[in-house]
Structures are given as structure tokens and as C-alpha cells.
């Protein structure tokens, strides 16, 4: 059993699988590989004297490393995006997704833009008490400005001290909206892929 379980074919298989999932979180990855190895050993033990051909058969039934890696990645994305709403986790998931194709890239862009807008509201809310003349909602012919340094933006500042709670609320709405949009897109992407699979 030991000779077969450590046969070059099997080691090549697991090396290939490792290379395909190397970017995913280590604990889950190690657990998966440990389980798959146990599976292969169990399968080989059913055979009297496992030979190379048996190893091939067992690995073929297991699925290609690519197939398993894809499933693993999909399950991880599913789990992360449906259970966490932290922007950091979502951005990281999206960054991984960009590797998966154009659609992933689009989702990543949406996330970046949404969270950056949210961030700019939070930052200006923080700056308002220190630079009351430079930060706020300035409306002029050029449109709307939130902040400008060192000279205050043109136009009339319309919110005054109320800018702080207003910016926090708007920033929060952007964070929430972006997160929900990303989750929606990721889910839709998944069903699209399942249809294409």
C-alpha cells in the first residue's frame, strides 16, 4: 500500500493540485489535500496489489486537479461572499476573481470604485473638524466639490457642521450598496457559470 500510495503518478497529481490552489487559504487547502490523500489510500487498499494502472484509475475517478481546484475555488468564493460583508474580504475575493476572467475584473472595478467613494466620504468627515473651511459640500458652476487644499474650493459650502454626520451616512450607504451589489454580481456569475458548465 505504501509503495502505491507514494507512487510518482500520485505525487505528480498532488503537486499539480497544489500549484493550482496555492493562492487559497492554507488551513482549508491542507485539509482538502489531507482528505483527498486519505481517499486515494482507501481506494488503493481495496485492490489486492495496486499497480500503476490502479493508481491511474483511482486518480481518474477522483477528477483532474483542475476540476477539483475549480470546485474548491468556487465553494470558497460562495462561502466568503455569502457570509462576510467586510469590504476587505470582498476586495480580496474579487482580486482572486479577476484571475477568473473579464467578468471577475468588472466586479473588481465596481468594488474599487464603490469603496473608494465611500472612503472619500469617511476621510472628509474626519477632516472636517480640523479644516472646516476646506471640507464640506461646495456647490459652484463647476459642479460639486467635497474638499480642496490648501485653497478652499469655489462656491458656497452648504452643510456646515452637519457635513460630518451626513458624510458618515452617505459613506456607509456606499459601503453597503457596493457590498450588496458585489454579492449580487458574484451570485449571478455563479449561476451563469453553472449554466455554462
Amino acid at each position: 500500500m505504501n509503495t502505491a500510495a507514494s507512487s510518482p503518478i500520485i505525487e505528480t497529481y498532488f503537486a499539480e493540485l497544489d500549484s493550482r490552489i496555492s493562492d487559497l487559504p492554507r488551513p482549508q487547502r491542507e485539509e482538502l489535500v489531507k482528505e483527498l490523500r486519505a481517499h486515494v489510500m482507501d481506494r488503493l487498499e481495496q485492490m489486492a496489489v495496486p499497480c500503476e494502472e490502479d493508481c491511474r484509475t483511482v486518480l481518474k475517478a477522483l477528477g483532474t486537479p483542475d476540476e477539483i481546484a475549480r470546485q474548491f475555488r468556487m465553494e470558497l468564493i460562495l462561502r466568503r461572499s455569502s457570509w462576510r460583508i467586510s469590504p476587505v474580504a470582498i476586495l480580496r475575493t474579487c482580486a482572486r476573481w479577476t484571475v477568473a476572467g473579464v467578468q471577475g475584473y468588472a466586479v473588481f472595478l465596481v468594488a474599487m470604485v464603490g469603496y473608494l467613494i465611500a472612503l472619500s466620504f469617511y476621510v472628509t468627515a474626519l477632516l472636517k473638524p480640523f479644516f472646516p473651511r476646506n471640507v464640506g459640500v461646495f456647490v459652484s458652476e463647476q459642479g460639486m466639490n467635497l474638499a480642496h487644499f490648501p485653497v478652499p474650493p469655489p462656491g458656497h459650502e452648504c452643510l456646515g457642521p452637519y457635513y460630518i454626520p451626513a458624510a458618515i451616512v452617505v459613506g456607509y450607504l456606499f459601503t453597503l450598496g457596493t457590498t450588496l451589489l458585489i454579492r449580487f454580481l458574484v451570485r449571478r456569475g455563479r449561476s451563469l457559470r453553472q449554466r455554462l458548465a
Partner: protein
Amino acid sequence: MYMALLRNGTKAEPTEKWEAQLRKGCLELAILASLWEQRLYGLEILRLLEKDSDMVLAEGTIYPILSRLKEEGLLESEWVEAEAGHPRKYYWLTAAGRQKAIGMGRIWNSFAANLSALLRPVLNGRGGKP
């Protein structure tokens, strides 16, 4: 055959492709159902699926699904040292997993019953009007 079918999804005939999709879609429920009465490790779950529902797939793909179900709190697991010389990871249903299995099972039953009713004339071989 189903293995080949799942692998070559793009090349398969449309009905075969649909069948593969259907099997894939029911896999989660089948896994939860297989654990209803006992603790099992991955290979035992696969054998049960093979025997009772001929729901065979690329075997390795069951493990990522099990790990997600665990993360979702539907399953619990533990590595157990076996006589085989290597440990095996056993899974069992949590209370939430049982609830989910019941819920999914109910949906499946009513869905299957309605569709069967709809299919009765189709499969009875009575000639419909063109």
C-alpha cells in the same frame, strides 16, 4: 458514464448536459440525506450516493462541498484514527443541517410531485393533439 458526462459537459448532448446539471444541483441535498442516520467519511458518502441514487460525479469534487457545508454550520467533522493506518474525516449533521435537509426534502417532494403530474400524459404514451 456520469463521470464522463460531467467532465465533457460541453461536448455532451443537450439532454445529457441537462441531466448532469440536475445531478449536480441535487448533490447538496443528497449529501445531507446520506448523513441522516450515521456518521460517514467522504468515501462512504460517495458509495452511498452511488448505490442509492447513482449520483456519481468526479469523486474529488465532493470534498470542497463538504468543507463548505461544514463552514456553513450544517455539518460537523472530526478526524478519526482508523485501522487502515491513516486517519479518516468523519462528518455528521448538526441541528441546522437536519433542519436544512428537512426543508430541502420538502421542497424536492412537492416539486417532484407537481412535475410528475405534469409529465403523466407525456410518459403514458397517449397521443396528444398536434
